């Protein structure tokens, strides 16, 4: 047996596949590899382009770089609202390795329940598992440092930087500044939000909304190569965001602060009442500058900056006293006796009275079978126009209103800007109401009754004005007959301070009434404040001539509350207290209107001191500022140096007439 393999031999000697059939296997291999080559051809040649596109989508992610929202500053350049970089912490669900540890460490840092954090992140299965879920949008310095320190031990946890809106003074001028929030689904479809993406932050109310286009800026973006976990590998290209523009308001922070303070109640009889409700508007009658605007109760707009939580939103939105509403432009109140100035002007313009016309007041006025009482039971005796205004004699104005008739009253009310929105650049302004027989028939389906005209003459009845309307009307008296459009924004600038647009003062109408007539009315208004027993004496500012008029308006008919002690009257039934004033009388620079909503007292007692605080601050500041005018101008325009220098030269050349220099700055 020299051949151990002999029995294993095939009879076949290996020439050809005669005994071993190889062709099926050959065919099989050819078929398989042919199929593969065909498939490769299909994927790489025929569908190559499309699949290459998909690989790009896979690996290139567009990340939006949010633009910093523009700053809002007061007329002197002091920041009221700004955006700052805020650090948040987020979790990428896909990258979390040890959930229990991750959430308990994060819980300790954020001082929140780890289970709550875990359920906030969840365990998404689709692509969103690569997207970070934000757990906190604004970490404190300490928390930020802690997160940074733990980052490498906690895969999936990342710090996120985003601009966060900050309102430096919290609730100050809250309704005027307005709120921001994520764009609503419905808003995305509106033409004014063209080019916005869902999730973007937009102005919702107030200046934030009306100046959205200027404040928004332009978002930038990064094309980033990311790996399968969404981690950044390399940046392909980057377009830096352009920060939103700076907005210079007509507002004066000092006056605003004084106005806010005027709402603080220090009444030992009402210890639970900390702040009065109502509104206050301060205007410059020469150009319409809104120097201060308060609506109370207020809220802190910072609550909206990082996305308002449901609870806060609900409590603000459902609050009986509507803190979100800007009462200065959307609160309507009967003007009460403040309206008498307009009735007086109407009487003089129509020739129904002159300054010497005397009306005897015996405490009541009879029309037909009804008697209308003067607020002063004993009567004022014989009064002329000045004394009628100074003493707020109802009988004089009953008589005058009756002679003028409702149509004339309405006509002059409209001339002074009542009954329609002032056109202030804030959303949500209302028209108020100047009642006429036509209006009554249309809305109520009833005929006008003459007695209503009598009520109208003293600002009661269906008359409704907003505080800003009343301020515009008094500004018209103060500036000699020009109906201003209140100016909120002085200037739009780029984020780095280059002037984009100056907003010129705007007037709705000029010479609506002769200055001589307004002078006569002003004389009466002056006595309201300046006379020893004037109802507005509490609005006096030392050294300054102030003109003004108080108003007290009933909210419900007297018999509902007549037999109650003042503090027993439910808040909602208490009177509104109004006061409107301007100063200095000889050349008015400021108009202030204050409304104490349901203040439960007279305008002279409650609203006049509020106005006084603002006036006092204004003149106190003016006095302080005289020597430092030049510096103020330079501060107000920090970038446009040439201009600032030019203005300075003018001031210097004209022999230190600082006021002129200031005017030149404010009215370019």
């Amino acid at each position, binding site marked *: 047996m020299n*051949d*151990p*393999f002999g*029995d*294993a*031999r*095939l*009879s*076949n*000697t*290996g020439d*050809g*596949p005669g*005994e*071993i*059939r*190889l062709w*099926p*296997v*050959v065919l*099989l*291999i*050819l078929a*398989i*590899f042919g*199929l*593969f*080559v065909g*498939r*490769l*051809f299909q*994927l*790489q*040649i025929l*569908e*190559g*382009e*499309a*699949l*290459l596109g*998909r*690989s*790009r989508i*896979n*690996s290139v992610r567009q990340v939006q770089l949010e633009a910093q929202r523009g700053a809002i500053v007061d007329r002197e350049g002091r920041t009221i609202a700004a955006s700052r970089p805020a650090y948040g912490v987020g979790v990428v669900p896909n990258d979390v390795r040890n959930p229990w540890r991750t959430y308990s460490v994060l819980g300790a840092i954020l001082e929140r329940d780890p289970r709550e954090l875990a359920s906030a992140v969840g365990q998404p*299965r*689709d*692509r969103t598992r690569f997207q970070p879920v934000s757990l906190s949008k604004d970490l404190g310095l300490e928390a930020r440092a802690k997160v940074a320190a733990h980052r490498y031990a906690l895969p999936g946890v990342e710090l996120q930087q985003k601009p966060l809106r900050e309102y430096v003074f919290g609730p100050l001028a809250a309704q005027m500044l307005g709120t921001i929030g994520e764009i609503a689904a419905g808003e995305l479809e509106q033409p004014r939000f063209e080019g916005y993406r869902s999730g973007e932050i937009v102005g919702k109310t107030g200046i934030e909304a009306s100046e959205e286009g200027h404040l928004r800026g332009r978002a930038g973006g990064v094309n980033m*190569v*990311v*790996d*399968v*976990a969404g981690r950044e*590998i390399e940046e392909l290209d980057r377009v830096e965001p352009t920060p939103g523009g700076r907005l210079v308001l007509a507002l004066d922070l000092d006056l605003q602060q004084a106005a806010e303070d005027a709402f603080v109640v220090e009444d030992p009889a009402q210890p639970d009442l900390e702040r009065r409700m109502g509104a206050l508007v301060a205007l410059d009658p020469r150009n319409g500058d809104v120097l201060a605007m308060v609506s109370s109760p207020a809220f802190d707009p910072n609550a909206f900056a990082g996305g308002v939580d449901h609870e806060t939103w609900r409590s603000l939105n459902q609050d009986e006293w509507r803190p979100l509403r800007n009462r200065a432009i959307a609160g309507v109140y009967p003007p009460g006796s403040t309206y008498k100035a307009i009735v007086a002007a109407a009487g003089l313009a129509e020739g129904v009275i002159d300054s010497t016309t005397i009306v005897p007041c015996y405490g009541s006025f009879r029309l037909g079978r009804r008697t209308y009482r003067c607020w002063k039971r004993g009567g004022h005796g014989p009064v002329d126009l000045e004394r009628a205004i100074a003493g707020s004699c109802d009988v004089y104005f009953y008589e005058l209103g009756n002679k003028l008739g409702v149509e004339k009253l309405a006509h002059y009310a409209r001339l002074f800007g009542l009954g329609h929105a002032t056109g202030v650049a804030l959303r949500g302004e209302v028209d108020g109401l100047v009642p006429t027989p036509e209006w009554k028939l249309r809305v109520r389906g009833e005929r006008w009754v003459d007695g209503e005209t009598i009520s109208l003459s003293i600002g009661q009845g269906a008359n409704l004005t907003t505080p800003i309307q009343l301020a515009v009307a008094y500004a018209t008296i103060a500036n000699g007959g020009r109906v201003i459009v209140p100016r909120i924004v002085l200037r739009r600038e780029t984020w780095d301070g280059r002037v984009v647009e100056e907003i010129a003062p705007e007037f709705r109408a000029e010479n609506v009434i002769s200055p001589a007539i307004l002078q006569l009315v002003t004389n009466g208004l002056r006595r309201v404040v300046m006379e020893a027993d004037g109802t507005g004496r509490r609005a006096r500012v030392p050294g300054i001539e102030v003109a003004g008029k108080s108003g007290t308006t009933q909210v419900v008919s007297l018999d509902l509350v007549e037999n109650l002690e003042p503090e027993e009257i439910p808040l909602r039934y208490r009177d509104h207290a109004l006061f409107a004033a301007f100063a200095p009388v000889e050349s008015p620079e400021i108009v202030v209107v204050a409304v104490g909503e349901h203040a439960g007292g007279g305008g002279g007692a409650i609203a006049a001191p509020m106005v006084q605080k603002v006036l006092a601050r204004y003149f106190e500041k003016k006095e302080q500022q005289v020597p430092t005018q030049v510096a103020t101008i330079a501060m107000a325009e920090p970038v446009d140096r040439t201009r600032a220098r030019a203005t300075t030269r003018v001031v210097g050349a004209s022999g230190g007439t600082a006021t002129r220099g200031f005017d030149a700055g404010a009215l370019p």
Partner: protein
Amino acid sequence: MNGLRVERTSLQHFDWVLAGLVVVLAVMGLVNLVSAAASGVEGGSDIVGRQTTAMALAAFVIAVVVLIDYRHYDRFAYVLYGGTIGLLLLTLAVAEETRGARAWLFSGRFQPSEVAKIGMILALARWFGRNPPASIRRLRDLFVPGVIVAIPVALIIAQKDLGVAVLTLLIGLTLLPLVNVPLRAWLGIAALGAAGLVVLWTYGLKPYQQERILGFLDPSRDPLASGYQQTQSKIAVGSGGLFGTGWQEGTQTQLRFLPTQHTDFAFSVLAEEWGFVGSVAVLAVYAALLFWGLLIARNSKDGFGAVLAIGLVGMLLWPATINVAMVLGLAPVIGVPLPLFSYGGSALLSTAIAIGLLLNVSMRRYVF
């Protein structure tokens, strides 16, 4: 034993073509692995070094297998077969469950099912060497080879290593075209196969494996599990285009959108970075290797050598087929590496034995 004289003669007939094809494939695989590893996949640059070491070891294994006259393997075929079956049983008894399967020994370093395939091929070659396939005309004559295939397949199914079980079965089936059974017998086999599939689906497959197959048939079922892998693989292959994105330039690879790109999806990396040209080139080398194996079978002096060579060709063909089909989205995701090309030491060992056996049969074609 035959003397060294025989060996010396044989060495003069060393099959340089087969060796060359193997080296070309392995080098291509290594170059590809460097790119896949560069993406920072788990294990990092380490895996290139490990693969090189494994290849050196594989060369040594090939040399050892080549030096022993294959007729000794014939003589001990059943013993070797029995040994590998024993290993499978041992694995079943002692192995811990890893990745859902109980298929590994020596803490995951050695997979007995890999050598079991070779044991099975040896046993089949011995049986068919004595019962020439052409002479088999009745299905019942295939009882013994059927049992030879069934035992390891059953044991591997018991290990819950579905992929390898299917592979082993396919390798066994590669020999079927050689036999001369009539058409109705084929139908019988098909019916049996179908029944087997139903049984396998019901009892053999774990839910996630069923999911994978359903996910393949309907990718929208779960686009993020196995469907996701396959979609990413297709994107990678397609974005290669005609000439590819360039070595280490494929975004799907470098940004790790490709799953297990150094092992199961190594061919995707190749297709992305080398394009249609590169992929067809590698497939061509592969096809050449397989056809060369069939040529070795034809030129073999004995039945054992011929059937052995065909079985070994099957052992290379089927994993390659399943792997490439999976990469190209033609088959469900089954974790089978591409022989000689993918990273992986354990699979390389059995592939080396197979190459060694092929070289062995080839160089002894003139021996007797």
